[in-house]
């Protein structure tokens, strides 16, 4: 969007124009004293206009964050976010909420660390409690080979100023006494990569916070609005066909994660994405006993304890392509076995529920962000199992891309063209089990 030039100087990327208001301690007391609290709806509903400057497809965290940064940082408020279901009904409301920046490549570390910085200030910026609990993140090593990878990751991290170090079983025991670090298990714990700033965030709150803030800036959030076609002419986007009518626009952003191939197909853009479900499960709540997030690549499992006391478990993606979100008994059985190897004390815990979400997997476990061969059609996809932690930085950078008309340096390495040029950003070693 080059026609919008007059923007303020270099601080614009760090300062929203106005603070999001409306929620406060006084309001909480006032509403709490009423017999029926009269909270206003957090965002409004609108008729679909027949024209928007920017149309964002997908009302998950990425679509909403992009809309928010377009409005707050660049003054572009003539924006619609379309979702075929409800806001946060995709991966954004199904993930296990882990945030960290101890990735393997310099490009990845810089990118995810920016997101962590944005997350650290997000509750204040959005005036919405996102419950970011920086309780530390442990990736266990059960073999010499994985200990070596962790040493490598720790060094890459440290060079970029990210707090990350390799620790031994005694330190692990201090941080997480429930873990079995003896030499009894089949795969004894030899050490761990420890990342103190990592932690968990309330995923729904992030979605709702961005939604509410975008709405206050005048962005239109359209739920129950499915995109069924995209119009192009002379290699440019001209409009979007939806289940509620046509919208003309020159700029479309695809933020549909697991469904993104179906949107790309509408304009003939091919990508390496393969859609696969990722499953997770949660137990009944118990007293707090587990501080850090614990990941074991060897055992294909990770676990954290929520603020409510439930244990949240996850694993790697299901091993073949699917658009189905059914959970499986195989998953929960395998998971239970592995969790008990790590923490034998949990044998009496009961699982409350399990679920799945769709993940848009790429060959290098890095996202695909930026322009495509079709003018005005941008993608913010390939988020696989790691896109929750990246929501703020992805939104910020996609907004910058749209406002400036060219990919900012931070996301340049993640362009779609990298697959044909062979310059992949390999993050599999840091992202396949721990998300």
């Amino acid at each position: 969007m080059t026609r919008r030039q007059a923007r303020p100087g270099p601080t614009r990327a760090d300062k929203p124009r106005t603070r999001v208001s409306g929620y406060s301690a006084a309001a909480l007391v006032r509403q709490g004293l009423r017999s029926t609290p009269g909270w206003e709806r957090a965002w409004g509903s609108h008729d679909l206009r027949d024209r928007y400057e920017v149309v964002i497809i997908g009302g998950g965290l990425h679509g909403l964050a992009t809309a928010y940064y377009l409005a707050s940082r660049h003054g572009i408020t003539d924006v619609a976010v379309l979702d075929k279901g409800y806001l946060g009904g995709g991966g954004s409301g199904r993930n296990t909420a882990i945030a960290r920046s101890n990735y393997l490549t310099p490009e990845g570390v810089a990118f995810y660390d920016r997101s962590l910085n944005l997350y650290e200030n997000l509750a204040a910026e959005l005036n919405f409690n996102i419950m970011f609990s920086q309780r530390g993140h442990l990736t266990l090593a059960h073999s010499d080979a994985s200990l070596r990878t962790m040493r490598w990751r720790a060094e890459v991290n440290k060079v970029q100023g990210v707090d990350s170090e390799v620790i031994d079983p005694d330190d692990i025991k201090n941080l997480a006494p429930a873990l079995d670090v003896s030499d009894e298990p089949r795969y004894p714990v030899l050490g761990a990569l420890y990342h103190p700033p990592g932690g968990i965030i309330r995923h729904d709150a992030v979605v709702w916070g961005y939604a509410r803030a975008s709405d206050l800036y005048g962005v239109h959030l359209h739920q129950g609005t499915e995109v069924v076609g995209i119009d192009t002419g002379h290699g440019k986007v001209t409009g979007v066909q939806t289940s509620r009518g046509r919208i003309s626009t020159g700029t479309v952003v695809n933020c549909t994660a697991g469904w993104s191939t179906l949107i790309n197909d509408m304009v003939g853009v091919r990508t390496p994405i393969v859609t696969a479900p990722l499953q997770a499960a949660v137990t009944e709540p118990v007293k707090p006993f587990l501080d850090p997030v614990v990941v074991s690549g060897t055992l294909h499992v990770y676990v954290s304890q929520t603020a409510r006391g439930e244990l949240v478990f996850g694993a790697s993606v299901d091993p073949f392509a699917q658009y189905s979100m059914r959970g499986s008994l195989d998953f929960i059985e395998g998971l239970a076995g592995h969790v008990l190897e790590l923490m034998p004390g949990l044998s009496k815990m009961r699982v409350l529920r399990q679920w799945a979400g769709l993940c848009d997997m790429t060959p290098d476990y890095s996202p695909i962000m930026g322009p495509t061969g079709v003018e005005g059609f941008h993608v913010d996809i390939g988020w696989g199992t790691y896109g929750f932690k990246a929501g703020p930085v992805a939104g910020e950078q996609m907004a910058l891309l749209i406002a400036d008309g060219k990919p900012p340096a931070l996301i340049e390495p993640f362009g779609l063209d990298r697959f044909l040029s062979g310059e992949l950003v390999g993050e599999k070693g840091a992202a396949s089990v721990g998300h």
Partner: protein
Amino acid sequence: MIVLPCPWCGPRNVTEFHSLGEVVDRPDPRTATRSEWRTYLYLRNNPAGRVHERWFHRAGCRRFFDAERDTRDNTVFSTWRLGREETGTGVEA
């Protein structure tokens, strides 16, 4: 449980198999350009619907075979043997 019929062993739990993903035409490596080769390596159709894909019976006969499956609900339409043994008499599910 998702059941996949191996053309040699019959119906088995899908956990016995390893998926190799959708079948993509392989260009001749001696004449393919880099971009043709990378297109073959990386780009996928990833359809929501019928897909022609390759499987390996890892915990069974350890042979490869092809299948046609619906990625939305895991209906398996047919599986069949590869190469010389492809007779068109695949197992219908």
